[in-house]
């Protein structure tokens, strides 16, 4: 087990480096320079060149990247060129919002997706059809549009939840939960369908397998077969799907933060994109990737625990 974790960690590090390098190189391709952005269009070429020299932007890309990487490892992701605040500070301030959204939605996705997938597989008939139709529908509907409709219904008409804004957990846990309800619900609704489809398909495949036939023929109660024998075998692909769904959820948080006016990493990302605030964008991109890597690592570990063949490899 430990071996799997260590090996995965060793793979995760180069992954981070590659992603940050891609982002950095892309950034260097951008027309204009950081100094131009900082000084505005009225700046003299001399001033721009001087600032670039000070910032090290006149160096080759790889050299710049190397110094950025060194600082990043030490915990310094440089500063915003718009506000001048350190990127790490921005991250720290906005992380709780995004994390609440993403983790909340992920948990909801797992609960809804796995349960409805199982129900569809076990009961079949109408329940199965509902899951199948919903899955298609949900994949075809734009989440941001759904979010707004949900906002109109639950926020404006029914007034069950606030239409926008975010209340920190520390201020009021109940308001925190209420402020998350809509965005988390909408996010999870979309992605849960994917998990449900995979859960159902995997369980149905297991039901046709030889070992399930043997268990049935030897008088195992159906609950034991479904919840123990089939569940453990179906869990692997479902886990993989969940980790992929998490990547989608992170993208979704950007939209949700925008729609529900929540001060998270995503809304920062959108603002910085509009402002060409490269250091912030780079820092955020790397940080998002890091979150994905952590989730992938966790699913890999879970995989190892579930599937003896993975361990054997």
């Amino acid at each position: 087990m430990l071996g799997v974790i260590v090996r995965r960690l060793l793979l995760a590090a180069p992954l981070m480096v590659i992603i940050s390098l891609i982002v950095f190189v892309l950034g260097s391709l951008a027309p204009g320079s950081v100094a131009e952005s900082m000084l505005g269009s009225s700046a003299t070429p001399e001033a721009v060149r001087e600032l670039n020299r000070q910032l090290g932007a006149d160096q080759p890309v790889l050299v710049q990247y190397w110094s950025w990487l060194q600082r990043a490892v030490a915990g310094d992701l440089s500063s915003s060129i718009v506000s001048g605040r350190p990127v790490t500070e921005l991250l720290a301030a906005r992380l709780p919002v995004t994390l609440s959204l993403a983790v909340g939605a992920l948990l909801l996705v797992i609960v809804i997706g796995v349960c409805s997938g199982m129900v569809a597989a076990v009961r079949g008939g109408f329940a199965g059809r509902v899951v199948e139709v919903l899955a298609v529908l949900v994949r075809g509907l734009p989440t941001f549009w759904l979010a707004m409709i949900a906002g109109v219904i639950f926020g404006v008409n029914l007034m069950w939840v606030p239409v926008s804004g975010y209340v920190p957990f520390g201020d009021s846990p109940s308001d925190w939960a209420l402020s998350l309800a809509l965005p988390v619900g909408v996010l999870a609704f979309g992605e849960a369908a994917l998990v449900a489809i995979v859960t159902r398909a995997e369980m149905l495949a297991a039901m046709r397998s030889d070992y399930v036939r043997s268990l049935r023929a030897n008088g195992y109660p159906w609950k034991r077969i479904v919840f123990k024998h089939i569940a453990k075998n179906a869990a692997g692909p479902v886990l993989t799907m969940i980790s992929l769904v998490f990547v989608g959820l992170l993208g979704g948080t950007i939209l949700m933060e925008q729609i529900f006016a929540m001060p998270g990493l995503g809304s920062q990302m959108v603002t910085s994109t509009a402002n060409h605030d490269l250091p912030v964008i780079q820092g955020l991109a790397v940080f998002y990737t890091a979150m994905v890597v952590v989730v992938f690592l966790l699913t890999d570990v879970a995989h190892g625990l579930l599937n003896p063949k993975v361990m054997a490899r």
Partner: protein
Amino acid sequence: MSAVIEGASADAELRAAAERDAGFLRRLARQPLTVGSAAVLFLVVLAVVFAPLLSPSGPMEQDLLNIYALPSADHLLGTDQLGRDILSRMLHGGRVTLLGVVQATTVCTLIGMTLGLLAGTLQGGVEVLVMRVCDVLLAVPGLVLLLVVLAIFGQNETAAMITLGIIMSPTLIRVVYSATVAVREEPYVAGARVAGLNSRQIIMRHILPAVAGPALTQISLVAALACLVEAAIGFLGLGVVPPNPSWGNMVTDAQQAIVLAPWMLVPSGGIIAVVALSLTLIGNGIRDAYAGRASGSVSAYSWRALTPVVEREDRRPAPAEVKGVELETDRPAPVLSVKRLSLDLPRGRSHVRIVDGVSFDVGPGEALGIVGESGCGKSMTISGVLRVVPMGARVVAESIGFRGVELTTLGESEMNAVRGTGIAFISQEPISSLNPAFTVGHQLQEAVRLHRGTGRAESKAVAHDLMSRVRLPEAEVVGRKYPHELSGGMAQRIAIARALAGEPDLLVADEPTTALDVSVQAEILDLLRDLREQSGMALILVTHDWGVVAEACDRAMVMYAGEVVETAPVRDLVSNPHHPYTQALLRSSSVGAEPRQLLPVISGSVPAPGSWPTGCRFAARCGLVQDRCLTAPVPLVPTTGGVSARCVLVPSTLEAVR
């Protein structure tokens, strides 16, 4: 897949496969949902392409006196906050979105197909490299990278959509790759190489057609996703700069007017939904058409649907059968007594009979062999007894008596109690009949706990005892292994031990040695015999191998086309078969035949279920056929010495027919 595919399942598969070959496009055209989606999509694309001609007014034309208008004859979809015609804006805005979809999908398809096929066919370093790159790309949060690109390239749509294509490619690469690998391992590809085809020919003829279905499915989904993402970018205000319309920024407009004019949400988001949904549905349609099934037909499959319909048939038995029962009164009361068991499997909307009125008894401690060729219904017979049948099956029987209990009247849970403790089962593929996710020791102990209600420690002791009974040495070591770490023979021993956990009176073994080597087969058959002698357990052994029957059984029942044609003690059956089918089959064996001389064969093949003749079902292949064989069903009639045969040439049958 097992070497010998039994009965109806094989038939169903054949049928499914035949349908698959009826033409992919034709099947696609038969799906109303897919055709409808394609039509809608086509109309939308046409309308968007000819937007300047079709739109009632210019996309920027303002009418400040008529803002937030609801749909009317002038403005079919109403107006927005500046009084602009929503329909016109939608048609013009779609040009950007659809162009973006085409760009992203094209890039994704090019990368996905090329790399997927390369990785799948070249193997080695390329394979590893491509799959690693995929892993990396999959870990990139797509929207985040898109925003990075938009920031860097100054909100350039084309750059964003190309990036999107790249980000979405790993899934397609994986789909193409795994489809390629699946085909690459197919024996027919090896066959093509042996036939002398070069790599290009193999890819064009064998690999691409197999990859096309999954790839097309994935590409439609990619297009749907591209549509949604493009709209999302527009919605975030990072794509097309207002006041130029795009589907995304029209939703933004609607959002700002959400309280004043909720109607605006409907057309703006609706068009995105319509396009994305159509693409998704087309993808699903392609998938279903490719898999050779009607749209959505899998949804009928579920755990609940596995429970069969069991009917008890109250019917006056025919005189011949009454006589049969009476004649066998000298034998002790049977453990299992099956009377007129039939099993129907669903085919399309109707059912087709697979097993037809099979009756047999198994005495205490007796070993009954059920022999026959593929498709004769021998496996389905025991499935019917155990009620573990393919989905949608119908079991009809006059009576299935087990230890004096009538099984046909039992509910599913009562029946489940009989399985395992009364009747146990072992299957053909020893390794796959064990759950791959648990150690065999755990599975064995679970069976003991379940069937004997013992505690943890005692279960472990019993499990060890069972393992020594099936002659598995080093119970501790073997118990810690997973099924895939065992040899076929060891796995079958574990399966037998698991079946013994409930101390059953009857063990049902479905081709238990077919997948094993001959030397292992002998060991397993010896083991079954010894266990039977030790515990007095009866055995039903289903097999197509006459050697196995001779080796392991006391009595054998020969099945042909869903019915029993002969029952006899094994020795008599082999040395003096009564039914022409049994005779011909035994003669056609190469065992003991004169080497390199032609064998006496039975011409033709077993008639498929659903196309059985009225008369003797073997008549068409029988060398001794007479007119009376063809007219009416031939009863199974007992002769002397516990032999029964279903043939008009057997003397006692002659009498019965008269």
